[in-house]
């Protein structure tokens, strides 16, 4: 099975899971099969030292105080990393989960902001993910700010964006500059490819490394143990990715 070609979601899972090494508690929200797989992979590699809280799971879910506990737990400083996506993501780290055009009568309606407007401010390491990397998704300015990438001085903000992982590359986020930096491009993607597919300005080194591949045994672990673990919460994703 490990001889099967590595897919883009697998590259993204690998890139995200590497950002989680050494953390104590990683939480995963709704509609997040790629981060969920990455978190479960990082946990599998941690030797039991990492907790993963997977919203919607009945097994990988340590919460007993109802829907609010994830948010309370984040505000208590007990969650180290979380994941957000967006119908649009802009170069300042703002994300749009509401829609395009007038939000009262949108041209395109997205699902809604979920907990983003809150968790983005409170969890130290928020990793943005979006498989579709295009000028349509990565825009200069979002139509609607569900959650703001940066805050005014004096505002309480222990959390914020850490990185953005797409189907083409990995960006880091620089809070001082309120902008992204290209860190690596996935196999077969050039810096020019990334530039032409990205609607916002970003910085990068003169040469951009390739996103590191998962070691063979880690990939095998993803495709077996983790595939089965994530299937409980995301059966369609697990089936389409790994046939489980």
């Amino acid at each position, binding site marked *: 099975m490990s001889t099967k070609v590595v897919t883009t979601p697998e590259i993204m899972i690998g890139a995200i899971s590497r950002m989680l090494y050494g953390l104590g508690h990683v939480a995963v929200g*709704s*509609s997040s099969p790629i981060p969920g797989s990455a978190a479960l992979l990082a946990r599998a590699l941690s030797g039991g030292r990492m907790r993963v809280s997977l919203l*919607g799971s*009945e097994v990988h879910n340590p*919460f*007993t*105080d*109802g*829907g*609010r*506990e994830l*948010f*309370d737990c984040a*505000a208590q400083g007990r969650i180290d990393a979380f994941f957000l996506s967006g119908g649009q993501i802009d170069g300042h780290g703002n994300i749009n*989960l*509401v*829609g395009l055009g007038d*939000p*009262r*009568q*949108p*041209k395109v*309606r997205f*699902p*809604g*902001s*979920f*907990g*983003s*407007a*809150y*968790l*983005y*401010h*409170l969890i130290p390491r928020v990793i943005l993910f979006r498989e579709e990397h295009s000028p349509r998704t990565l825009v200069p300015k979002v139509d*609607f*700010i*569900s*959650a*703001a990438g*940066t*805050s*005014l*001085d*004096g*505002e*309480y903000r222990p959390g914020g964006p850490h990185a953005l992982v797409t189907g083409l590359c990995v960006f880091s986020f620089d809070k001082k500059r309120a902008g992204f930096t290209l860190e690596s491009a996935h196999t077969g993607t050039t810096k020019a490819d990334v530039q032409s597919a990205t609607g916002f300005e970003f910085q990068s080194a003169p040469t951009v490394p390739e996103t590191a591949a998962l070691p063979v045994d880690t990939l095998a672990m993803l495709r077996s143990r983790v595939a089965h673990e994530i299937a409980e919460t*995301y*059966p*369609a*994703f697990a089936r389409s990715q790994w046939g489980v």
Partner: protein
Amino acid sequence: MMPDTATLTVDALAARIPDGASVAIPPDYSGCAMRAVAALIKRKARNLHLIAVPAGGLQADWLIGAGCVSIMEAAAMTLGEHGTLPRFVAAMKAGTLDMRDATCPAIHAGLQASEKGIPFMPLRGILGSDLLKLRPDWHVIDNPLSPPGDRIVIIPAIRPDVALFHARYADRNGNVWIGVRRELMLMAHAARETFVTVEEIVDGDFLTDDAKGAGTIPALYISGIAHAPRGGAPVGLAGAYPADAAAIAVYARAAQTTDGFRAWLDETILGNVPA
């Protein structure tokens, strides 16, 4: 059963939820009273103000498609892996739904304010979000305990007229067992009245039962209970039966158009044989 908790049929329960009521409903993973929702549709409920706690799913889409909803308050509207909610999206594009976008913890905080009988709850985060423009009822104040510059959002109390959900068990005293699904307890504490459909009504008193007590909403908060086996289908009920993915997929396809939704509604909810 205590006199202020009534045992009802599903139709009688739906009849206790008046047009214009604000109705708090749980997310799809937490016990949705789908049979009661179908009864609301059958009795042509109108102008409901749905409050999703915190995300709306299949039941919200059914009610929106059937014309029962005028105000929708939610942090998100989604069918999960089945994609978007077709009738919700259609209503938004048509501009016919008063959508009050929120963020999950703000809905919990607003309900907790009602639970505590306080006018508002402060909440971190949110600053810089355009949600503040859509929500004139959310205010930003300076934290009175901090030096200037520490702005904080305050969320007004959310006091639903009704909380409506489905659970596994009630006892004959009207106590309802919800296990770890504490958002249902929050809803019941916050709402004026709570109506519950259950899989089973059982003997014994959950409040004096060591194993059940901790996951029980006392009858004190429950206005009416209806016995509704498989009342959470097709969304599913944790520990009892899974989501019926095929039925949900059928719905998601059918409801892409107004006509398709109508035909689905006639056949599946209203029980009419298609002409």
